[in-house]
């Protein structure tokens, strides 16, 4: 009697344990999981290699085969390998940048991965992964944009970071009078100018208008767009930006800030690491949300999201889906977004943000100070072709503000062709 009771308890426990195991692993994964990744910079590379190794060890029957491709080269190679030699998991970006592959049927619909808890945990980025009401991938990291400023220079000149447009401009005037440029920027590769457009447009006309514009629903010659450029022009006419910015990449524009020739930089959080390496202490460097321009519109932010997708030609989709669940789990999210790893924000709301001044501030901004919405970034929200034409227009406008009419006419012509 006693022994059979024991056996019964043991059996129940065994069943429960195997049920728990089944819940975690579902059917045991087998075969090979091929991952193509663009995480080629040193820190991201260590992260993806660590993830691949760990996932391999977690599943006995499964071999993880990781290929890391240079981040820039990846952008053109993905077109070839998605159709010719599809892996099981591939990196890409959220928003409109995934549209060509979704439309061509090259990414798998993975709405089933999102069912249940995941949708709640990843609520902040779900919209960016959704097209035609389905989800086509999962995010694994994102980061805030904002005004990174030299706190020591601001203090010397007796100014505080601005929360409104007038203070923003008067601060700038104070700095210019002291012989310091307000902002450094390098527009050689165009996209940095798009950051400024995103923010000024979202602050002038709001998130919904900005999205409508990048979706091709609004004419570029619209008066509201002109208002955005008029606001931008106020800064340009003041001489707020460093000279000759067309000759620099974003990295080449950093020394102006490090040397104190310019006091602030509108950038993504990835600029913090090189600024720290360049000798700025956390006391010298501050982060501030881009100020309000039109008080009637809600604040909205840029937060570009990097993603994992399953190509529709994947041979091991079960393992791939398990990998996506694993990557987005709260624990892994907390770990890979630490400052010594990716140094960015976790996408899972149950993860904890690293103990870092800028990550904490960015998390605060994105989670509670961005009621209008979260945009990806101009070249991810707009189709690639439109982004190229528009960013060239932004650069031209920054150098020759008087060409605005010509620029807007060109953009409008491109819009009519691209979105037809």
């Amino acid at each position, binding site marked *: 009697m006693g022994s059979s009771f024991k056996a019964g308890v043991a059996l129940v426990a065994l069943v429960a344990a195997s049920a728990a195991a089944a819940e975690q692993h579902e059917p045991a994964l087998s075969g090979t999981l091929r991952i193509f990744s663009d995480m080629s910079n040193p820190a991201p590379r260590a992260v993806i290699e660590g993830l691949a190794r760990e996932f391999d060890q977690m599943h006995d029957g499964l071999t993880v085969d990781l290929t890391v491709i240079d981040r820039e080269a990846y952008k053109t190679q993905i077109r070839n390998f998605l159709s010719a030699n599809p892996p099981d998991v591939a990196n890409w970006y959220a928003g409109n940048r995934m549209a060509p592959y979704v439309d*061509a049927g090259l990414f798998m619909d993975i709405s089933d991965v999102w069912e249940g808890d995941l949708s709640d945990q990843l609520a902040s980025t779900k919209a960016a992964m959704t097209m035609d009401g389905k989800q086509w991938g999962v995010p694994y990291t994102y980061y805030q944009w904002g005004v990174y400023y030299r706190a020591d220079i601001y203090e010397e000149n007796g100014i505080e970071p601005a929360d409104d447009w007038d203070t923003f401009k008067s601060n700038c005037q104070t700095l210019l009078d002291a012989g310091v440029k307000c902002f450094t920027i390098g527009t050689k590769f165009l996209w940095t100018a798009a950051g400024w457009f995103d923010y000024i447009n979202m602050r002038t006309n709001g998130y919904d208008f900005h999205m409508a514009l990048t979706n091709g629903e609004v004419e570029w010659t619209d008066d509201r767009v002109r208002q955005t450029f008029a606001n931008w022009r106020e800064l340009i006419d003041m001489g707020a930006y460093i000279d000759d910015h067309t000759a620099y990449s974003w990295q080449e524009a950093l020394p102006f800030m490090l040397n104190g020739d310019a006091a602030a930089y509108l950038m993504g959080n990835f600029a913090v690491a090189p600024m720290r390496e360049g000798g700025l202490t956390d006391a010298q460097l501050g982060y501030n949300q881009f100020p309000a321009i039109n008080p009637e519109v809600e604040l909205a932010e840029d937060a570009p999201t990097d993603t994992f997708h399953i190509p529709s030609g994947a041979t091991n989709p079960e393992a791939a889906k398990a990998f996506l669940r694993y990557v987005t789990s709260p624990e892994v999210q907390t770990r890979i977004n630490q400052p010594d790893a990716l140094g960015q924000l976790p996408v899972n709301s149950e993860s904890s943000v690293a103990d870092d001044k800028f990550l904490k501030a960015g998390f605060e901004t994105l989670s509670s100070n961005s009621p209008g919405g979260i945009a990806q970034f101009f070249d991810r929200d707009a189709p690639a072709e439109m982004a190229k034409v528009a960013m060239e227009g932004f650069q031209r406008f920054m150098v020759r503000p008087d060409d605005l009419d010509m620029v807007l006419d060109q953009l409008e012509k491109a819009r009519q062709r691209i979105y037809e």
Partner: protein
Amino acid sequence: MTTATLPQSRVRRSWWHRNQIAVTPWLFLAPGILFFAVYVILPIFQSVGISFTQWDGLGAPEPVGLANYRELWDDPAFYTSLRNNVIWLLLYLLAIPAGLFIALFLNQTVTGIRIYKSLFFFPFVISQVVVGLVFTWFYDPAFGLLNIMLGWIGLGPINVLGDPAYVTYGIILAGLWPQTAYCMILYLTGLNAVNPELIEAGRLDNAKGWRMLRHVVLPQLRPATFIAFVVTIIGALRSFDLISIMTNGGPFGESRVLSFYMFEVALSEYGFRMGYGAAIAVVLFLIMLCFIAYFLWSMWREEQGR
């Protein structure tokens, strides 16, 4: 015995024998012709075909007739690229007189002349990417050598690569550096073949300096000049790497040439309009065809003349 086998082998051997001379060159040419046809001729026709379609490289191409060409006609970026191509063609030719001048200057017997020659030839040996990077730093508005030197005489700073007015000239100058070295080496070899007796005869007739160069030396350098023209014009039309390295086509597309514009439209990060890119390629091909036809024609005429 022998009479029985002879006719057979004579027949076999005689076919080969009769056609040997005609067939052998074709046999040797066959691999070249095959690869030239598959990798050069065929893609030309494919490009023309693609240029009549709209295609993102992923889905199925959609025929659109002449729409790509009509769009090119109204595209300001296309005219900017075309204009820059013309500037490249004209200014790149400066490499020829510059190369000739340096070759004449170096064509003397002084101790260590070989070292000087190698130094002048050096820029042609290093990669275009390196040339581009070196000149990018040279032009840099903040720390570039150019602006430091301009500062000594109270000028500048000039943002060469960031200013639409200077950018194309700045890149061409970088391109001229290796191209001049190339022309120089062509002329140096040419000068070796100049007949000393003709020089002597010219000297007896009291020809000196410019007249000697113009009427005695230059005519003998004609083959070198011809080759220098060919390589320089082709080099100007396919200028791509320097633009890609130094400006990426910027600022706002003002330093693009047709080949770079084609790349941007069809193959770059924001591109993937294969049809439109192919249309640009076809236009570039037609321009090149004019020169190629002229070169082939003058080479053919020369062969006839011999």
